[in-house]
């Protein structure tokens, strides 16, 4: 082809992730039935699956859910589903997912012009914008009025409740998946923009190769210190587990929660402008997650987990409106909550429950969900600052994740453990968003 003057593209990325060396991933990756199956059905194994394959139990469930969401029977037409996912991914400037779903959208027979801008999409889809925006960045602001505007008999264009809930789950799924994509630094697929080049490879250096990233280098030097850090963390975990609950007032508990919630974690690393491809699909791109004001000022209301929980309320509602989806998501949440290999960094046989719980609750805390029966003091004890930076960035501003942030927490942990943390962030975030929107729907239905 080259002789005929056709440029032959060359894949740029050296592996699925810019943060994780390819050989790490491939160590546990291949020979999994799930991967083989997904390869056979899709004709490729995308980078998401490859990275998730480090946790096969989860990957299996994730693919099942995603398949059900995008391909199986449901109230929305297939091309709409992909388009909604595109809209959602664009909020987080995630060109990876935008391109993945654009392809899916076109494959499902969607009209190409829609992708060139939201104004080409039907009014019904555009009417999701507000919800999309809130769901992505500040789900606690969603009220039953938002639902009413779309669903109530006078609304034009009108959504049915089943359609709406399908769309909402799609959006929440895509938003949280953006966190994962950014958090693992996924490289573009070879056919994505930025995933290939027509330039011949230059020998000097490849900018994407993770092994040469400075942050990583730093990590290696501090390995000795790292070992100590792990020891400390483990000791704290054991202490926390054994510690008899000391009596502390509600005041104190609330303070601890608020402190975690409003702790200022610098995340505002400004990145280059998102590609045009993404930007034209976003309305109000400046609408972002907003740090909760320090206590005393007008803080948005807290959602009490005991008043609206996934197990009791969210599941029932979702299962009612979108049968099977509730079951699949429930399964996914359970898998991610119980996923453990009983090891931490170089230690085996560790009960990581408290650490996972702290991560999960910290993310919910960032979204204003409070557990009465959880002492938020332990978040402070267990999550080091660099980890908090990572978690908060991923959960709230995923598009600002950098290799430095990724490499600077848990420096001595395995990559698979970092991916595990990513999964927890992603699922916790998904659940938080779902809880808010499902609560609004419940209120609307009342």
């Amino acid at each position, binding site marked *: 082809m080259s002789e005929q003057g056709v440029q032959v593209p060359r894949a740029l990325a050296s592996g699925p992730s810019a943060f994780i060396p390819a050989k790490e991933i491939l160590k546990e990756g291949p020979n999994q039935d799930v991967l083989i199956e997904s390869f056979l059905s899709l004709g490729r194994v995308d980078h998401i699956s490859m990275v998730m394959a480090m946790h096969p139990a989860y990957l299996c469930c994730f693919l099942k859910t995603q398949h059900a969401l995008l391909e199986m029977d449901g109230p929305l037409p297939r091309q709409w589903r992909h388009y909604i996912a595109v809209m959602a991914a664009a909020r987080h400037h995630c060109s990876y997912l935008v391109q993945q779903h654009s392809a899916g959208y076109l494959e499902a027979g969607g009209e190409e012009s829609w992708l060139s801008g939201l104004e080409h999409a039907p009014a019904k889809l555009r009417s999701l914008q507000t919800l999309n925006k809130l769901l992505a960045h500040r789900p606690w602001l969603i009220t039953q009025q938002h639902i009413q505007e779309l669903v109530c008999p006078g609304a034009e264009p009108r959504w049915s409740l089943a359609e709406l809930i399908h769309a909402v789950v799609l959006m929440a799924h895509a938003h949280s998946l953006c966190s994962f994509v950014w958090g693992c630094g996924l490289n573009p697929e070879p056919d994505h923009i930025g995933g290939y080049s027509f330039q011949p490879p230059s020998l000097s250096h490849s900018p994407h190769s993770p092994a040469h990233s400075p942050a990583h280098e730093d990590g290696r030097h501090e390995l000795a210190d790292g070992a100590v850090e792990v020891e400390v963390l483990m000791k704290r975990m054991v202490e926390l587990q054994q510690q008899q609950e000391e*009596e502390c007032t*509600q005041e104190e508990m609330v303070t601890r929660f608020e402190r975690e919630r409003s702790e200022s974690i610098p995340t505002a690393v400004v990145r280059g402008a998102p590609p045009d491809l993404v930007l034209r699909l976003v309305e109000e791109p400046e609408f972002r997650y907003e740090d909760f004001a320090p206590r005393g000022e007008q803080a948005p209301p807290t959602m009490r987990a*005991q*008043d609206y929980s996934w*197990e009791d309320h969210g599941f*029932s509602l979702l299962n*009612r409106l979108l049968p099977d989806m509730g079951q699949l998501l429930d399964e996914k949440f359970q898998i991610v909550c119980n996923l453990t290999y009983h090891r931490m960094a170089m230690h085996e046989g560790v009960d990581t429950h408290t650490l996972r719980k702290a991560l999960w609750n910290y993310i919910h805390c960032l979204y204003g969900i409070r557990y*009465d029966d959880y002492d938020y003091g332990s978040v402070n004890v267990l999550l080091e600052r660099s980890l908090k930076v990572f978690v908060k960035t991923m959960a709230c501003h995923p598009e600002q994740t950098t290799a430095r942030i990724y490499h600077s927490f848990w420096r001595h942990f395995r990559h698979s453990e970092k991916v595990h943390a990513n999964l927890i962030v992603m699922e916790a975030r998904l659940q938080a968003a779902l809880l808010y929107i499902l609560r609004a729907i419940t209120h609307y239905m*009342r």
Partner: protein
Amino acid sequence: MEKMSRVTTALGSNAISGKTMFCHLDAPANAISVCRDATQVVVAGRNIFKIYALEEEQFVEKLNLRVGRKPSLNFSCADVMWHQMEENLLATAATNGAVVTWNLGKPSRNKQDQLFTEHKRTVNKVCFHPTEVYMLLSGSQDGFMKCFDLRKKESVSTFSGQSESVRDVQFSMKDYFTFAASFENGNVQLWDIRRPDRYERMFTAHTGPVFCCDWHPDDRGWLATGGRDKMVKVWDMTTNRAKEIYCVQTIASVARVKWRPERKFHLATCSMMVDHNIYVWDIRRPFIPFATFEEHKDVTTGIVWRHQHDPHFLLSGSKDSTLYQHMFKDATRPVDKANPEGLCFGLLGDLAFAAKESLITSDANRKPYPGGDRRYPMFFFKKPDPTEQFAHVSSALSVFETDLDSHRMDWFVKTAQLYLLSGKPFAELCDHNAKVAQELKRPQVSTTWTMLRIMFSDPANLATPGPNHNLGKLGTLPLMNSFSLKDLGSGMGAESRLERSKGESRQDNIHLEPGNSYISNNEENEETEGSEGHPEYMFGDAELDDDDLYSMEHDNQTEEQEYTLPQEAFQLRHEIVDNPSAPEHLQQDKADSPHVSGNEAEVTCLTPIESFSLISISQPLFSPHLPASFFCPIVREMLSYYAEQGDVQMAVSVLIVLGDRIRKEIDDLTQEHWYMSYIDLLQRFELWNVSNEVIKLSTCSAITCLNQTSTTLHINCSNCKRPMSNKGWICDRCHQCASVCAVCHHVVKGLFVWCQGCSHGGHLEHMMNWLKSSAHCPAGCGHLCEYT
């Protein structure tokens, strides 16, 4: 306190009374509990913890237990229970994991008695022992159940549910030592209070969390459980394995379940999401609630029967911040509103119908379905009356079998076998097929055939085959009439009605533009033979009476042939209309018809001249030489109609019989599709011969080639045993002629016949001749060949 005790004594002696009433709470309730003598109720929630006295007419707030300027989370209650022995003792489960007991006898404002903070997570449930004063049980989200002795500072025993969250714990009413615990993973465990090391028994009750359980107050073996899977199940625990004896399917996840006192088979449920009602079920009638309370505007969170021996009072608290007392007599009885008749179609067209028995039997006496020869009551199913409280209901279920299927197949098969598709003149084929259809009681099809004959017959041929047409004008008239009559009368359906309405709308058109509408007039005539009267409108569009006459005529025709209206007028009209269908004998009339219609016009119209001229204009279009193609559009339409109706047989048969007359009008794909469908049907009915005939007669290349599939015969060379690829008689490899005639020893290039016994053979003719004279094989192998 004094006040309270006074109330107690006031109501304690006589039976409780009251009415349906409610009061507003300040905050959503999470749980309620009632004291033993049924005079007070405690309401607990995240932001509320109050005691109300139940008075005759209203709730009266007695005490607010939520004291302090900034109450601690210990006041945020997930559950509350009032001790059934000690009237001053209350216990609450807090969302932060604390178990708190309250002593109403304390003199201070803060009645908090004991505080146990042993649970790490939210406590979902607390439960006092029904007979033991100091024993309290708690179940928590952290997966542990703890038993407290209220005289001690900490728990006396801890039961581990293996890290699964505990949703409910209940002491057994009858077994002193036993309690049941339900779990988030769907399990229910039975524990002995003396053995904290392991459970006595465990079984999976639901898929998903079991939110609640309740022991039957009288029957020691029964445990009711409710789960997120929207089911209430009743388990018999007396046997070795817990046995599910009843199951009630509700419409939303079940948050609470409570047995109704004094009614062995009743229990009350409320739901956690979406559904705000409280239902009381008779577990033997699991499909419809026995009673419903519909007062709450948000989900009901707590239900309790007011007195443990009184089934008529139910208290409930809700997220809508109200506390209700429901009187049983005020409950809605869904059974009264339920539709007592059920009707359902089976997969194969059977029809099941259930109704009150009385209805059915009276029906049977009156013979309500006079024409019901298809009705076969299969069996009557009498349901024994289960409850004294449900109205005596017994239903009868009748199943009506449809015989339609077998009938339909019959006509299909018969028609397929009897139809003639070729081999005779066109008109005869049509007549034959019309007769076949007629015999099979398919008048519409029959008439269609007849009409096809009329439309497409070459006028010259028609004189001989149509003896019934020699009857003349009057003869054709009944034919047409019978067509419209049958169409309208047989109820064969939409088509006829459609046509009729078409005709009517066309009449309107004519009314609108009477002057130049002869084109539409033509259409009319080509489409429906029944629209005899239309030309008349052209003469007499001014006459409204005529319109009436016309419609009257139509009606009358369906009943009798004798018209009450002036006879000539109608006859003449018919002549005009009949012309286009061009039976030969009418051709003579043709010449006269201007005169005739002129006469008619004189009779009926005020403007004869006008009409005369119009007729003469339209005359050529009605000429006897009307080409057959003139009818093609409507025949095409008719074929599509039949095909769409599922009678592809008719479509294909007509297609074949009409042959070239219609073929070009219909696109090949449609034809092919029809053929394929029909052939497929025929083959399913194993009508191989007919299907073969159809294939043979079809003109679609795609169909005719069907007969050539699998007709290739592969042969091997008789010398080298290799497959012969190129020609049948000479082998490419050994260059030998393979098939040589045993008689003439020349190569056989055409038909080769061989004996299956000795496999010698040759030219068909040669073999025939040879075997006429000799019984032995011509090759001399000695075999006695036979040629039949």
